[in-house]
């Protein structure tokens, strides 16, 4: 029994370990200090958007990653949370209710929860493909109705508000973006902590059980429908918080926010980041938001790159980015990272070459067909090309084909090295 006590104690201790506190402290500090590092207005509003999306993606992962439910309509709760928040803001502004701004995301949470309960009661009767289709149908219905019910949804142009109209909070008006950033950051911290906490509860574990083997959970006493229903409602609640923050950040909510595009992008974020790991959606939300804003400046065909990235992850790294990082844990633990890292580098170089080659091909053909009016010249990676000459095509093709070929070989070597390191570590 001595080992038993050891395990029990270590499990108990893992809950409040020093490292755990250190991670949360570091996260809080990072959120606090980021504006010092990136003080520009664009950076602040980008980070505010990222904070919102982190909550949204994590709430989605309560469904996809934790409970195994693929929803195509999660943005409904994001949008409804935003609408509730914006109406509350306007009412508070009009009637002078003494409620400070930082409280308002709770209204969004309430909206998200209410409709999470309502739609969840319908959708969670089913799972798998049928669940996916119900959520798709609900999403279409809500968006279509939003355009018809103009009083509440404000039609196509949506509902606007002024966040500075409500009671000021210790002298902060929340007019400047930096103050909004801190509001988003605070709620982001609270929500991330809360969602993390949920994964560490009896309910959180049962969600995982339902994801892994729904039928078996019935034989350990749980009703899988109820588990899914609670998960769906809670996901709605947190999506509502995210929607509320978005409403405060942009001071406008509209029907498109509940639409299929938004629901699709949260799937991209969550999956690219990694569904199997709590931190995955955080990484995904940051990366995809950044791509959406920055890659779109660099190239008009950025959705192609994001789509290819997504397919690549689905095919080759179902654990997402976080999954790939987590795979390095055992290697680091075994102290063998220095043995594997050179192989990663060896694979990364042709990988990068392949990506460059592919992007040259894509950009060249894009310039050739769509942007022909802007002339045949194009600057790729600081080098000028003429798309009517065969040169860029050949260069792109050679780089892409050669890169892929070398990458596949190097990847095999890297995998061997990885497996060797793991095996050695265990021995």
């Amino acid at each position, binding site marked *: 029994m001595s080992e038993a006590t050891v395990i029990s104690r270590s499990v108990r201790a893992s809950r409040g370990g020093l490292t755990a506190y250190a991670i949360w402290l570091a996260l809080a500090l990072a959120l606090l200090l980021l504006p010092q*590092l*990136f*003080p*520009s*207005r*664009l*950076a602040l*509003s*980008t980070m505010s*958007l990222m904070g919102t999306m982190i909550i949204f993606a994590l709430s989605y992962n309560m469904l996809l990653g934790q409970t195994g439910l693929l929803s195509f309509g999660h943005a409904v709760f994001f949008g409804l949370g935003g609408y509730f928040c914006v109406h509350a803001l306007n009412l508070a502004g009009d009637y002078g209710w003494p409620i400070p701004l930082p409280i308002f995301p709770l209204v969004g949470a309430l909206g998200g929860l209410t409709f999470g309960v309502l739609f969840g009661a319908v959708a969670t009767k089913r799972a798998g493909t049928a669940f996916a289709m119900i959520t798709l149908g609900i999403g279409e219905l809500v968006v*279509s109705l939003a*355009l*018809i019910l*103009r009083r509440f949804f404000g*039609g*196509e*142009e*949506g509902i*606007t508000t*002024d966040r*500075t109209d409500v009671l000021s909070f210790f002298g902060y008006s929340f*007019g*400047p*973006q930096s103050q909004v950033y801190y509001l988003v950051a605070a709620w982001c911290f609270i929500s991330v902590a809360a969602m993390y906490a949920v994964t560490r509860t009896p309910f959180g574990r049962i969600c995982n059980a339902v994801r892994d083997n729904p039928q078996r959970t019935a034989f350990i006493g749980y009703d899988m429908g109820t588990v899914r229903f609670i998960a769906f409602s809670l996901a709605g609640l947190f999506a509502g918080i995210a929607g509320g923050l*978005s409403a405060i950040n*942009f*001071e*406008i909510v*509209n*029907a*498109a*926010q509940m639409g299929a*595009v938004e629901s699709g992008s949260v799937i991209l974020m969550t999956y690219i980041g990694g569904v199997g790991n709590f931190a995955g959606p955080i990484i995904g939300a940051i990366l995809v938001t950044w791509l*959406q*804003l*920055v*890659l*779109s*400046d*660099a*190239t*008009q*065909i*950025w*959705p192609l790159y994001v789509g290819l990235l997504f397919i690549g992850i689905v095919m080759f790294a179902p654990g997402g980015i976080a999954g790939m990082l987590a795979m390095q844990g055992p290697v680091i633990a075994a102290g063998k990272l220095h043995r594997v890292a050179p192989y990663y580098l060896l694979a990364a170089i042709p990988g990068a070459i392949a990506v460059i080659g592919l*992007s040259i091909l894509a*950009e060249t053909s894009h310039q050739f067909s*769509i942007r*022909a*009016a802007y002339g045949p010249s*194009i*600057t*790729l*990676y*600081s080098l000028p090309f003429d798309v009517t000459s065969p040169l860029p095509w050949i260069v792109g093709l050679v780089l892409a084909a050669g890169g892929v070929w070398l990458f596949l070989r190097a990847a095999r070597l890297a995998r061997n090295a990885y497996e060797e390191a793991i095996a050695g570590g265990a021995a």
Partner: protein
Amino acid sequence: MRNLLTSTALALTVLASAGLPAMAQETLKIGYVDPLSGGGASIGQIGMNQLNFIADEINAKGGVNGKQVEVVGYDNQLNPQISLVQVQKAIDDGIQIIVQGNGSSVAVAVSDFVTKYNERNPGANIVHLNYAAIDPVLTNEKCSYWHFTWDASADIKMEALTNFIKEDQNLQKVYLISQDYSFGHAVAGAAKRMLEAKRPDVEIVGDEYHPLVKITDFAPYVAKIQASGADTVITGNWGQDLALLIKAAGQAGLDVNWYTLYAGGAGAPTAIKQAGLENKVFQINEGINNQGYGPAEERAGALMSRFSDAPVYYPRMFNMMDMVFAAIEEAGSDDPGDFIPKLEGMKHDSFAAGDEGFMRADDHQFFQPLYISTLGALEDGQKFDEEHTGWGWKMAAAVPTESTLLETTCEMERP
């Protein structure tokens, strides 16, 4: 802007730069915030093309106040929230002039944001130049000192259109069909109101709304129009909702006159030609090809020969940029705080035929002569066809500026 690495590096430096105040620049930068990727990109790219064309024109003449004009595109993905981030990006890039047009939702968001931004950051002086969003709220309840619009609002267009229609003595039964959202309701509501006042004898036999871009088969709607015995249809539809409606009507052999606001939009002329509705479809706008006005034909011809794969343009965008450049030169400054007073009340000979229009100071709406035209086979002397169909727009009537004036409820707050 097409270089991945540099723009990434650029973005990083922008992120890292300590919010430096916009420095004096040798170029006058104009931010174009419209969809440049995804489904809306087809229309966004047309505006971008034209703006670049205008910039090249003026730069060839030495620029504005000696400064070269540079157009910077910001892809808003037709999403209001992304638009606002892109506007902030533009502001961080030192841009004070934002050009935007597509989508009422985006226009309201941008106008609202710019107004609040200027209020919260005195001296920022960002101006929103709107060339396409025509929801009447923009120049009424939600009007702003920092927002100017060059397209006639739905109410104005309908006022002019009904003035034209009421002269048609054969007109007896009118059918209204529009998309079920605020703009569609604005169009149909105005049509009903104005027809009842101007032609009380005309019967409105249908007042139909259908969901926005959700219909694949318009045959049932066409059957309904057919059954109502209507001789005229008025629609605010645009894009595929217009093209599919027209196609279905052509297939069913529906013989009515069509009055539209957006039959000039991308894809519609193709559909009209396919449906064989020669001289049956009317549109109202601020100018068409083939008006026989020399300066316009020359300029439009140069534009369309350069962008021959998408030979479409907005006459109002010429009006807009010509007026803004004139105001800047008059004020001797490209700070909107300085040139907005010059823009207010400015008179301008409109691009399409040289008739005079003016920017009303009360609501920042540009009033201009409007033209009603129909699409049909090219006749002698007509130079331009649409979308390579061999059919071109032909003038049916001109509505002088005076006949387009409408009251506004705008109570503008001035700084």
